[in-house]
């Protein structure tokens, strides 16, 4: 197993803070969107794009690229800012999120934005799409890996379990799926809205290799991603235990920020908190 040094981890943590600042600014400017689930998903997607995936922002259609499918499409601000920081398009574009005539639609669209693989927003589709990409990879003997991130509430959709069964049946070990397990969905706690526990045992019983980690610990994320990529004959599921609204004190575990953007005061406060964290991480570098 690969060992990740402190500096790599520190740099990724710093990138994650930068992304969180983008998310706050984008949603404040757009006056709409989903802060909670964007902030909770950041760390794993940062680890993928900046440390794990084989991808080239200059060649977004490279047939050998690893793919990331954001099934929880409402976390688009996280994906968009990570794609921009990776170099898929100018960071300046982020300012136009959700505006007319803009490449950044409210939810991802595959042909609108360079680097976006699948059009999502209606929950429960992404893992099925990943199955198709993975089957094509097997058919063509390609070495690429397919990543898919779902929300925890999203797994209430029946299609997710159709996809889970098919991935397991076809032994799609070139898929690593992730669940952003933040325990909150619009109507409240996931266990009150529609019980999901045990998430781990559910996926295991569907024939998946399941791993459960702290979804904000970059080192744990990278180690789990390596384990998943090396695991043969079964698809892998990484359950990311996360905090909705992670990184902004008053948004953390606050379901009111699922789909409500920050106002000016909240934005200023959030940026202040994140900038403090950013400075601390920079000093440690």
């Amino acid at each position, binding site marked *: 197993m690969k060992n990740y040094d402190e500096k790599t981890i520190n740099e990724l943590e710093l990138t994650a803070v930068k992304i969180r600042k983008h998310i706050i600014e984008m949603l404040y400017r757009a006056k709409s969107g989903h802060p909670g689930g964007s902030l909770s998903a950041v760390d794993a997607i940062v680890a993928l794009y900046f440390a794990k995936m084989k991808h080239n922002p200059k060649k977004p259609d490279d047939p050998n690229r690893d793919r990331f499918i954001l099934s929880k499409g409402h976390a688009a601000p996280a994906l968009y800012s990570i794609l921009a920081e990776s170099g898929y398009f100018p960071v300046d574009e982020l300012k136009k999120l959700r505006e007319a005539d803009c490449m950044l639609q409210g939810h991802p669209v595959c042909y609108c934005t360079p680097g976006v693989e*699948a059009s999502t927003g209606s929950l429960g589709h992404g893992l099925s799409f990943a199955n*198709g990409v993975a089957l094509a990879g097997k058919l063509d003997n390609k070495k690429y890996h397919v990543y898919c991130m779902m929300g925890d509430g999203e797994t209430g959709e029946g299609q997710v379990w159709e996809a889970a069964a098919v991935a397991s049946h076809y032994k799609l070990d070139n898929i690593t799926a992730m669940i952003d397990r933040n325990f909150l969905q619009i109507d409240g706690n996931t266990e009150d809205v529609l019980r999901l526990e045990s998430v781990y045992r559910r996926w295991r019983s569907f024939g998946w290799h399941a791993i459960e980690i702290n979804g904000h610990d970059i080192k744990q994320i990278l180690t789990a991603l390596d384990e998943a990529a090396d695991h043969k004959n079964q698809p892998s599921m990484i359950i990311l235990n996360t905090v909705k609204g992670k990184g902004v004190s008053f948004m953390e575990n606050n379901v009111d920020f699922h789909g409500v953007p920050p106002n000016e005061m909240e934005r200023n406060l959030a940026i202040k908190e994140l900038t403090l964290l950013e400075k601390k991480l920079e000093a440690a570098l």
Partner: protein
Amino acid sequence: MSKKTMVNPRNAYGKALIELGKKHKNLVVLDADLSKSTKTIMFAKEYPNRFFEMGIAEANMISTAAGLASCGKIPFVSTFAVFATGRVYDQIRMDVAYSKANVKIFATHGGISVGKDGASHQMIEDLALMRVLPNMTVIAPSDATQTGQIVHLMAEKVGPMYARVGRADAPLIYHKDDLKDIKIGEGMIVKDGSDLSIISCGTMVEPTIEARSTLKKQGIKARIIDMHTIKPIDKKLVMKCAKETGAIITAEEHSIIGGLGAAVAEILADENISCKLIRMGIKDIFCESGDPATLLEKYELNEKHIVKNAKKLVKN
């Protein structure tokens, strides 16, 4: 009346898939536990590694096809028309139509001539559901020969497409040579006539040809149009028929809402063309179990009723 040659369009589909599989190495086929009925099993036997049995899980099947298409594959997806559209509308909307994915949905068992399985399996809304989706091409081939040709055209043209055929054996209308110039989006003038135009698709084309012979004996000259592509509809041809014959009957094994008849009516309204119109189809009801011929008679979708409507239209 000469004895008709009956060929099942589903077999024509299976045969065309095998031909295409040889030609296009990137063509793949998906089915949801109905490969024996949809005839994708013919492809599965020939190219087992390019056939994906997806089980009774249609939603996943559609989105998976979109994933395959994103990697340059040409996926043909098959199941019964009820499960291929209504059950998976959201998957088709997001992953196929909105995403402009090169996915070909080929459904069988469309319409009420499915017969004894009853209304649960008689899909009469699919053309409407697919027609309302932006980017979607919608096709209903009329016989086995045309089905084969259409399947080839679907594979060669990029974009989301939906096609449906019925369950039953169907009388052969065309020889391959008749269809040399067939194009998706262009209706065909099968027989000319000047008193009225009968525009139909799918299983209804053959009965309209029969009706034409009956009408001819009674001095009524009907033009027969095979409008295999419901979307994009051949607007020019519809306008030509309206202007030249002044009367149109549309016939489809589908609800009168949202399908071929609706598409024709929309053109007449939009272009402000004065033309008599009767739309034949299922009149906004669910049908029932029964022998196909009995059902087509009860729900007024056969040669007899086409003749009746034509006479009514020409007389008025």
